[in-house]
């Protein structure tokens, strides 16, 4: 399973994530990032990772959770 961790303290609303991955991230009218998916489906995984990569303040992190992890 792939999960996104958005650090709302760090997020400043630059909006690059939304430009790269509009199906995963949205920056709302208050300039805060919103995740459009709870768990990232496989089909959006590359997009989610690309969107997290371009965050200029490193507020987005992709967590890949494996069933065997504690």
């Amino acid at each position: 399973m792939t999960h996104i961790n958005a650090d709302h303290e760090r997020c400043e609303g630059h909006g690059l994530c939304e430009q790269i991955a509009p199906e995963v991230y949205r920056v709302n009218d208050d300039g805060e990032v919103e995740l459009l998916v709870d768990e990232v489906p496989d089909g959006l995984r590359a997009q989610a990772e690309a969107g997290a990569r371009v965050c200029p303040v490193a507020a987005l992190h992709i967590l890949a959770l494996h069933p065997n992890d504690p």
Partner: protein
Amino acid sequence: MTMTSPHPPVSDIDIYSDAVLDDPYEAYRTLRDIGPVVQLASQPVWVITRYADVRNALANAEVFSSGAGVGVSDDMNALQAGSVLASDDPQHALLRSILSEKVSPRALGKLKTHIDEQADSLVASVVSAGRFDAVSDLAARLPVSVVADLIGLPATGRELLLPGADAMFASFGPMDERLVGRLPEVMAYVQYMTEMASRENLAPGSWGAAILDAVDDGRLGPESAMPLLAAYLIASMDTTVHALGNYIRFLAEDRDLWNRLKADPSLIGKGFEENLRLESPAQSFTRRTTRAVDVDGTVIPEGTRVAVCFASANRDERHYPDPDRFDIDRGAFDHLAFGYATHGCAGQGLARMENQALISALLRRVERIDITEEPRRHPHPIIRGLEHLQVAVVPARGTGR
């Protein structure tokens, strides 16, 4: 475990010399090919030049610390200590939060119309002249008027803003005869900013006044007011000026690119990022290591001054195929021209907004733009941009005169 070598490769290349700075990209490529970390023989720094390593160093602000300054010279670093640029968390986070309340994209939305109007009237005036210097007559004017208004500075003295910021950025370079020659400017500018950091000089409700409010309500120590004002004023000037000047040059040199953006102005932002990747206005800053750290097999000892070369990372062929080519379709939104992570440029939203305003006005009001003289580089140890960019324009039909 990776095997680590006890000594880094050493190079004679001086990334701060005028000879290299005139066309630094071959030198950066050589440094990238020598190894992940290279010690410079001519300067008291080690340098990181590959994309992945620069990005990792910027993301690892606890080890690659800004607290001892981000320039080359220890004397100048001591002067900046404690500023938002030259501090570590938690102090840095506090200072940044006061800035970003005003300068983050979420705070900027309501300024868009104002900035668009200023950019449009500037472009209208140069286009009616027909021939102009796209740096001094255009790119240099928008950030000065936009930022000075936002900070709430009085009209008199604004002529100091651009040369003052330019001198302050030069103080991030080595303490050589070039910098010694600019120290009187640095001192005069510090004095100007010290005078400005007071209620009588800052317009009520301005960003500058908000800094004094933060002092009054106890969030900020009084000693931090001037350095924070300086952070706004220095970081937002010649970086933006040269980002805009460089972009206009790319557009004027490539007729296909110009026509494509004229037909589809929604590409302006993408082109701006590609321009920043190729000609990063801030070429490099430094960090100091708080402990020994392994960078892709080379160990940097604790207490080492390390140059992180944004401009080299942005042309690293390990990350960007055919890196020297302007390719608007590349979508290189992950470039490091604004730095990255903890110290990633807080004002990048404002820079993007100024770019959008200026370039869209230019595309709307100009049919065709030609460079009329070979552009000359602005000589500077840190900032890459043009001294002059002489152009002639054919006005677009129906945009009014």
